[in-house]
């Protein structure tokens, strides 16, 4: 593991952790994870309400697929 104690404290910060850009990035990250939590909460109830393991598995599979597509899409956009 690298020696993390060897840090240069006087170097200028390349970014301000409280900048608007940083806040927006934080919010985006939080919303992604909050949406995952919401989907799991609603998903487990809806899947049981509609009945059957198949519905639950399909739902989780579709959600996984959507998140992967979104993640790949964002990655491709960032590379451009």
């Amino acid at each position: 593991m690298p020696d993390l104690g060897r840090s240069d404290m006087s170097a200028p910060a390349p970014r301000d952790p409280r900048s608007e850009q940083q806040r927006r990035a934080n919010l985006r990250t939080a919303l992604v994870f909050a949406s995952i939590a919401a989907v799991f909460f609603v998903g487990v109830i809806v899947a049981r309400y509609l009945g059957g393991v198949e519905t639950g598995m399909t739902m989780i599979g579709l959600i996984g697929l959507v998140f992967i597509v979104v993640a790949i899409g964002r990655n491709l956009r960032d590379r451009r």
Partner: protein
Amino acid sequence: MSSVPHDHVAGHGHDDAHIHHPSGIMRWVMTTNHKDIGTLYLWFSFTMFMVGGVMALTIRSELFEPGLQIVEPEFFNSMTSLHGLIMIFGAIMPAAVGFANWMIPMLIGAPDMAFARMNNWSFWLLPPAAILLILSLFVPGGGPAAGWTMYPPLSVEMGMGMDLTIFAVHIMGASSIMGSINIITTILNLRAPGMTLMKMPLFCWAWLITAYLLIAVMPVLAGAVTMLLTDRHFGTSFFNAAGGGDPVLFQHVFWFFGHPEVYILILPAFGIISEVIPVFSRKPLFGYASMVYALAAIAILSFLVWAHHMFTTGLPTAGLLFYMYVTMLIAVPTGVKVFNWVATMWRGSITFEAPMLFALGFLFLFTLGGFTGLVLAIVPVDIQLQDTYYVVAHFHYVMVAGSLFAFFSGTYYWIPKWTGTMYDERIAKIHFWSSLIAFNVAFFPMHFLGLAGMPRRIPDYSQQFTDWNMVSTIGAFWFGLSQLIFLYAVLKCIAHKGAKAPAKPWEGANTLEWTLPSPAPYHTFEIPPVIK
């Protein structure tokens, strides 16, 4: 104890004397500072540890002798249920979040958590939830008596205490999800320049993975107890067999949460141990990358093993075999971790201060608990041991000697940074040896009781189990009293009755928090450090 001759104090954003922050009670109510909130979490956790501990001692007092002595069976059942709920949701999880709040920003060079106000809210949701749990004992029908797992049909039919419990679980779940989102965002977005993910201290890695687990499984628990609530009051029949529902379905949903929850409780402990062992061995951690991959592997596998808690519910043979083998598979990444900790110590210049002693206690006893877990993973054995005291012994070796010992280790390790005062090494060592011996006196005999067939969650038992139950009760009281030594050691540091802590009291420490003065200033790393 080794200390460096000069405090190497790195600059920090502000001179604390010029910083205005509220004082008195309002400081703690309104605070958005990660260190304050970390302190609140840790004290809340310790308080709940004491409350849950008193419940444990009530249970052990009743079990000192066969027959009914002290409490009614219904109250006994409430005690076992609330003891579990309080220790898991009120003591261990908040303690881990307390460590995360205190240490993650300092370990990654961030000024605070990403969402400081949400951090405050996450904490202040916990006291009302705890009050609801305890209040459930005093409502008509008594407290929840269906076990911490809240299995139907009992939980569907119980009194109002179950409603309070369900509400408390919802609140604590919301708090955990918010805390997890905060931790993930902080780690992903606020690391100091140059600190790539693979340069992060392992404690942060352990918490990052734990937070992912929490976000995936806490909503599932919330969904399960919501369905329980609608079954109780809104005429649905998710788990009500009379209405076409399936009580076993609840077990599936619950353990989909419940098994990853075990790793939620232990992964932060792994993180602490991975920080402590290299420092006191004066060697870098052996196999950093493999430790990260092992953490991730444990987390992924934890989603695939839930039904090993349900071997006696009539699963098909293929299912039994699948869950048995996958459960055993978890021993591989766990073994990697244990091997790496031992390899880190190998030929190290080891010293045995209290943090290291607790880490070694953790290593020995957690491995023992893990091994009994492997025994329970074997289907034919589990069918014999299901719901016996062997299971109680197993999970207490994992939860108490695992999580709790790691938290003691972490507290002694970081308390010089938190309070600016060195803890009393002699008292801490007394605490360690007393806890270690008492823990084994309390819980080791439970293996024998379980193998002999004593069922769990019963206030009375056959006379043949008397001797080991007496030993266990004596050990439990001894262990409980030993924690007062810990309280004394911590209070001494808070009162600054001890040697002043240097910025880096541990010779082998090289993570970012040790570049700050002790005690850590109220605001730290407002100017991000650059990691080389």
